[in-house]
């Protein structure tokens, strides 16, 4: 319920954007509060790394604050925000030169999880499964991964994804199709017994 309300608030943040465009920092703070979790989770799925996700989210909102006055069509705010986030994700990705990702498997306390095979606890298995999927998601090519995150987790229409990425709808669908196929292969090859 809370998430639904949050989503409604996100899509009705028009007045906050207008105030932010006039330099109202308080309104911008509220706008950030509405979008922060979404952008963080987008970045987290892109990198699979909390620190990088936080870094990109922070940088995104700094740039948005600096450039929000240049946004002409307020209805495009959502896509504009994703564009900026994606640019930062790619920039950060290049800067780190695709380091070997490992942090997704590191627990909050810094320790590594126990063996993934034969653990009877369902909750633990769920977490393990989520961690594995996040890991596999990172292995996908950038363009497939981006479309998959936007479609699957951000709930965007193919037309909207095409707009953000400046590609055709068919290309977006094709990328997602090959992304899902690649993920299926990776899941089949994974050491867990998740049969596809």
């Amino acid at each position, binding site marked *: 319920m809370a998430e639904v309300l949050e989503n409604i608030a996100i899509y009705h943040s028009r007045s906050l954007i207008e105030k932010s465009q006039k330099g109202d*920092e308080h309104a*911008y*703070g509220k706008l*950030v*509060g509405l979008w*922060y*979790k979404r952008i*963080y*989770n987008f970045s*987290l*799925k892109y990198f699979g790394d909390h*620190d990088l996700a*936080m*870094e990109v989210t*922070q*940088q995104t*909102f*700094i740039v*948005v*604050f*600096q450039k929000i006055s240049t946004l002409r069509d307020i209805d495009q705010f959502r896509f504009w925000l994703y564009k900026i986030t994606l640019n930062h994700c790619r920039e950060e990705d290049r800067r780190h030169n695709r380091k070997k990702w490992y942090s997704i498997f590191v627990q909050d306390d810094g320790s590594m999880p126990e063996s993934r095979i034969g653990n009877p606890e369902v909750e633990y298995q*769920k977490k393990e*499964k*989520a961690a594995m*999927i*996040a890991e596999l*998601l990172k292995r996908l090519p950038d363009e497939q991964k981006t479309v*998959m995150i936007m*479609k*699957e*987790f951000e709930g965007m*229409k*193919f037309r909207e994804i095409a707009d953000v990425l400046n590609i055709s709808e*068919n290309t977006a*669908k*094709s990328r*997602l*199709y090959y992304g*899902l*196929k690649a*993920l*299926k292969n990776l*899941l089949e090859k994974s050491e867990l017994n*998740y049969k*596809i």
Partner: protein
Amino acid sequence: MENQDFKKELLDYLYDEMTSGERTAFEVKMEQDQALRKEYEALKQVKSQLGELHDKDVMEPFPVWSNPAAANRRNVKNRKEIIWLRPVTAVAASLLILMFVGYLTNFSVSITSQGWHVGYGAIATDKEIKNRGDEIKELVAQSIEQNNKLLLAKIGASDSSFQSRFAALENNVAKELASNKAKAVDANDLKNFLAELETKNSEMWKGYLKLTSIQQQEYFKTMLTQFNDYMQEQRNEDLTRIQNNLVELKETQTIQKQETDQVLTNLLATINYRSNK
């Protein structure tokens, strides 16, 4: 799977971006093409696996968007460089604050023959402490002596005041006793008083009984009136009911009469028909 359009359709179907007509057509196509169905099932399963990856909760940090310089300090590299400086800076700042506050409050630490002393203000030497002890003793003795004098003076004053008040009270009591002795109670007065009291009581009782009797009569009268009304009402209801029954009976009789006439007419008609036949 005849052409490459299946990818587009498959994804539109998978992510519910088809119209109802398109959906139906695609479902028919899947029924006919098992390879297409298999492909759809595989993608659907991968999609459901992706559903296992949920959003994480996160708190937005202190707002720094209006100060990019501060935000840039969050850079990972810089963060590593300054990370060790933070505790040193914090300790140094704390020490400076402590020193400043100590200076303002004259905070001092000293060692005497009695041990370590930490406190505010100058620390006294052993001699000063001894001298101060004698001074304090003398001051306490003077204070006690002064207090005793004051106390004795107050007790003396209270005693004389109490003596005089007691004497006055004793005098008043003696006077009162003497005047009471002079007033002897007369037996006739007492008799008259009792008789008067008895008469008043008797009159009061009579009045009370009379009042009660009147109230009871009124109550009884009201009750009888109400009972009469009730009986009248009942009677009216009974009469109405009887009247209704009579009307009903009359109607029933009329109907029965009509029915009898009809039966007789039929009978006559039947007899006539047979006789003519």
